[in-house]
């Protein structure tokens, strides 16, 4: 069985194709009777970037919670790669398989320095004893330096992360995600709290990342989604309302009703 199928354009996704990285089928989650995800199905290919939009409460964050093991689905299939059943694993396992996420509210380790935040995220052994005897090597230092300049925080490397601005924390968290070097990045509202210039730079960074990784981005900022220029999935009340290019979904009657009507 070939492990590296040639990258193809994500047309009509088929779960049994080798370029499928993430496969959700009929996933449902209820909180106290409230259906947060309702028979949600979605397929993300290798090195595909997907934008997910939808009104508040549509279930976007819950979808990421389900993929990363934070929330167990009540029903449905969740597969990563060709074999891994994500419903049978917890957060640490799933991170180990190569799924990283950025939270909607930027979450960094406030009392650690910017540099240590990245160091903790760096791909490597995760056990307590490996950590106890860990010695930072030159390659790790080099990787941290590269990431620091990529996220434009090199001048703040020794500053506690708690003192960063909102936008800087977003970038640091993206940097931590890259340090993990996951196959799939789930990024929840990266542009929130950023200036227009920062937003544009973030879009560019994500497009760059998507050349070698699969990325799922949740965002409300339409200018940002347009800048990403990728296939868009519209969520509403826990299921997919429409899928396609941004122009295509924007012309969709149901989407317009959801965003304007209500």
């Amino acid at each position, binding site marked *: 069985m070939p492990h590296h199928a040639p990258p193809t354009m994500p047309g009509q996704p088929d779960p049994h194709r080798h370029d499928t990285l993430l496969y959700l089928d009929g996933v449902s989650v209820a909180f106290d009777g409230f259906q947060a995800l309702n028979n949600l199905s979605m397929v993300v290919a290798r090195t595909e970037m997907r934008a997910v939009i939808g009104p508040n409460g549509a279930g976007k964050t819950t979808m990421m919670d389900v993929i*990363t093991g*934070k929330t167990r689905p009540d029903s449905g299939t969740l597969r990563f790669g060709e074999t891994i059943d994500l419903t049978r694993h*917890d*957060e*640490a396992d799933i*991170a*180990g398989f190569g799924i*990283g*996420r950025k*939270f909607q509210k930027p*979450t*960094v*380790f*406030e*009392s*650690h320095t910017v540099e*240590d935040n990245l*160091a*903790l*995220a760096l791909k490597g052994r*995760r*056990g*307590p004893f490996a*950590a*106890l*005897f*860990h*010695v*930072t090597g030159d390659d790790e230092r080099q990787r941290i330096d590269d990431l620091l300049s990529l996220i*434009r*925080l090199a*001048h*703040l490397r020794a*500053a*506690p992360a708690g*003192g*960063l*601005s909102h936008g*800087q924390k977003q970038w640091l968290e993206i940097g*931590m995600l890259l340090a*993990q070097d996951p196959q799939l990045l789930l990024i929840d509202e990266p542009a929130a709290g950023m*200036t227009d*210039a*920062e937003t544009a*730079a973030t879009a560019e960074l994500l497009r760059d990342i998507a050349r070698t990784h699969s990325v799922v981005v949740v965002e409300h900022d339409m200018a940002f989604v347009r800048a990403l220029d990728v296939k868009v999935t519209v969520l509403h009340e826990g299921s997919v309302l429409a899928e396609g290019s941004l122009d295509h979904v924007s012309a969709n009657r149901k989407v317009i009703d959801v965003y304007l009507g209500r």
Partner: protein
Amino acid sequence: MTRRFFTHGMTRGSWVFLALLAAAGVLVPALNLGLPAGHPLHMPTYAVTLSGKYLTYALLALALDLVWGYCGILSLGHAAFFALGGYAMGMYLMRQIGPRGVYGDPLLPDFMVFLDWQELPWYWLGFDAFPVALAMALVVPGLLAFVFGWFAFRARVGGVYLSIITQAMTYALLLAFFRNDMGFGGNNGLTDFKEILGFDLQSDATRAGLFAASALALGLAFVLCVAITSSRLGKVLVAVRDAESRTRFLGYRVEHYKLFVWTVSAMMAGLAGALYVPQVGIINPGEFAPANSIEAVIWVAIGGRGTLVGPVLGAGLVNFAKSWFTAALPELWLFALGALFIAVTLFLPKGLVGSLPRLWANATSARSKAPPDARTKAPAAAE
């Protein structure tokens, strides 16, 4: 590699602390044993023993700081580990009494003869050997902590709920050790000790030796804590404290980290208890009292959690004050402790040592008339 492991995290403050501790470990015994009783610098034996007791409390505080200050696990049951270590040592000391007990039984401690027991219970076997007893002072608290932590951390019990079940744990042990049929002397506990390693427990030299041993144990535990907290593991612990789920999503199995540090901490507390008992001469179920664990939390809070040195100082200061109060104004002690705790929580939330850098910065910046708090502000907008 090992040298680097143990020393690379040592700051100047840590070295100063160790130097002071080493000086005390040598000077206190010297001033007690080396000078005649009438000499103005002579240190009376009761003071040596009292200071030795403070050192064991300091070790308990250090153990608590490791889990609370660095990993955010607020244990309200650490005195249980301390008491278990104390009982292990007490059992050794009990068996050293031999036939010199009131009933003169060559094997059975007095309380067992009194209960009409015919033979030593199996769990008392081996405790006549000091190395076994010392090992048990570490292993028993460590094992209890491991089992407790295994279930609690895997079930993701945290925050207040964890604090409450640690308190329940120490309370359950309190009730259990009160029972005569447990075989630990019930209400009265273990006491009337005679010798440790063949040395008379009443002699000045033994007291001085126990003080020095306590100082040594505290110093070694301190170095171990520095090594742990300055390693990558220590950084993961702080990460867990600050953003536990973030740490999980980075792929760290948080429960394993908690279990490691929780078990190490319990063993340190057990060692503290083992050093405490020969100095105070008794161990009874009262050491499991929930209030004891809470007092230890107060020492750490006052000294400054997450600073290692702070809790050691906090334990020393609070217990020094306690000794003074209980002699002069015993009925006021709990009020004074409560007031101190509230004052520190309100005005020095990081404790004495944790607040020092800020107080120092304020003092120096006031002198140089610099605007206050212009420190870690990030330069405006990166781009």
